């Protein structure tokens, strides 16, 4: 079932393998097998509890990038119906690091866009590791504009290490593409629900992250810079990622406390990669609930509240008040 184990998950590997093999190959009616299975189950439950209930920010970072984690297209398949993928920015190319289209969610037509990572070497490279070029952001914008025009709610899924840093990306306006999306998403007169499903890497994540609700999967991260990048700059040592992950306050719980996100969507014990169906059903329940709350909000109020949702973020002091003296 689980194919890849992270270093801190290793203790589970042997027990899980033994459990699976027994279940698959041992005679079911043998009482000794049944006893062994029960015992293994208890030990596994305890071990999982021990490992996953006290994850460090760095371990969460690793989980958020876990290769077996459900990606945008997986959630689309598990949660939505009738999905039709739309392609291309109508300017230059189709960017496979960003996907999007039109679908149904619980019967209602919605617009859905998200970063897309790959799972094997070939797909990872095809998807550019989920790092969009400007065309990806422009495609996302074009598809989201359909939502604005046809009054369909928009759901976005964030899962990227960041926008791609390359020559062509710069030449064709990576900054402009991201900036443009930020501004336009602030003005779409339809509900927008953003879900950080994996890795929320900096401006390249935020570029599809302006909305009325921002939700995060329990083991997702969202950060101004990758822990490794931060470590390389501030510690002058890229291997200090675990320290930087701690310092940056990038876990879902941290962001909830900071008032940046609205809700943490629980993942099945051990993380979304261990139970896609469970993760998807929690995702669906949360997104539907928030869309329900937003459905009847009048357009003007929706936009005003979206404005203030971001307007109020920030921490500072001001001792003397406004000193515009004449």
């Amino acid at each position, binding site marked *: 079932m689980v194919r890849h184990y992270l270093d801190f998950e290793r203790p589970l590997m042997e027990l899980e393998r033994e459990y699976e093999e027994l279940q698959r190959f041992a005679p079911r009616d043998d009482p000794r097998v049944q006893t062994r299975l029960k015992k293994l189950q208890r030990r596994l439950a305890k071990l999982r509890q021990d490992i996953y209930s006290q994850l460090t920010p760095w371990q969460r970072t690793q989980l958020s990038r876990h290769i077996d984690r459900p990606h945008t297209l997986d959630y689309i398949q598990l949660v939505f119906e009738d999905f039709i993928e739309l392609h291309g920015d109508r300017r230059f190319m189709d960017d496979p690091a960003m996907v999007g289209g039109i679908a149904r969610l619980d019967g209602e037509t919605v617009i859905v866009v998200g970063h897309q990572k790959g799972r094997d070497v070939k797909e990872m490279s095809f998807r550019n590791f989920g790092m969009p070029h400007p065309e990806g952001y422009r495609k996302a914008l074009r598809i989201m504009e359909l939502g604005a025009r046809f009054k369909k709610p928009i759901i976005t899924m964030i899962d990227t290490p960041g926008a*791609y*840093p390359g020559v062509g990306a*710069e030449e064709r306006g990576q900054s402009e593409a991201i*900036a443009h999306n930020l501004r*336009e998403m602030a003005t779409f007169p339809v509900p927008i629900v953003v879900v950080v499903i994996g890795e929320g890497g900096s*401006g390249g994540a935020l570029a599809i992250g302006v909305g009325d609700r921002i939700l995060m999967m329990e083991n997702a991260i969202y950060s*101004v810079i990758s822990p490794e990048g931060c470590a390389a700059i501030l510690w002058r040592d890229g291997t200090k990622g675990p320290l930087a992950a701690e310092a*940056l306050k990038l876990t879902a719980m941290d962001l909830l406390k900071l008032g940046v996100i609205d809700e943490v969507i629980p993942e099945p014990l051990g993380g979304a990669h261990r139970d896609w169906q469970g993760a998807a059903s929690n995702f669906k329940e949360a997104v539907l609930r928030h869309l329900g709350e937003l459905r009847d909000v009048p357009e003007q109020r929706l936009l005003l509240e979206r404005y203030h949702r971001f307007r109020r973020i920030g921490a500072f002091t001001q001792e003397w008040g406004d000193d*515009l003296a004449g």
Partner: protein
Amino acid sequence: MAWFKKREPAAQEVKAVDALWSKCNVCNEIIYKKELERNLNVCPKCGYHFPISAQKRIAIVADDGSFRELDRDLAPVDPIHFRDTKRYLERLKEAQKKTGLKDAFITGKGNIQGSPVMIGVFDFSFLGGSLGSVVGEKIARMVEKAMEERVGVIIFSSSGGARMQEGILSLMQMAKTTAALSLLRRERLPYISVLTDPTTGGVTASFGMLGDVIMAEPGALIGFAGPRVIKETIKTDLPPGFQRAEYLLKHGMIDLIVERRKLKGVLGRLLGLFYH
């Protein structure tokens, strides 16, 4: 530290020279500081535009005595108790001492050749002009004030991007400032973005690239990712002139390049054209 003691006189000597002379980053010319300042901190030999303080920028573009600073006492805090090799609070204190500023951005209302406008200016010498909560709040307030007073907005950027030490709150300033600009746009008030050396990261990827008119100083480095990161990623040399103002102009990313000594005139004319 014996070696330090031995070298101390030499260090003082260098300091004395530093106080009087500057070296051009581009052509290596040693320039008399007074002359450099008279020339608006532009190298008289090669035309390189040295970074300048926010105060100096305001003095160059605003009509004499017209600038009224806003929110001068807005000051940073340490919302995520950040510490790397040093505490964020310490870094802030050092930067405040060095620059005499509370944070990396000054805002206010002034006139440019008689046209009233809200002006915001980064100071790169304050933690690399990084975008944190104070900068974001000041921009949101200046844009809101511009709408109240029905005037345009000019932002002079020079920034390394979002401020890591305020974590996700810094990233969210990109959304906050661009949301404010979306309202200004709806109100049909002009926003002019002036990109100066260097402007990268979250500043370029938010209000930096959203000007109704985007101008840059000659030679300014402007980009999303820094050249070093790009080089490490693609593992080949970068094209000549890559991410410089001239390169962006050629690729259609900015409207015009304006020399510092002409900046006030161009901004004044542009505001006049938008206003009347």
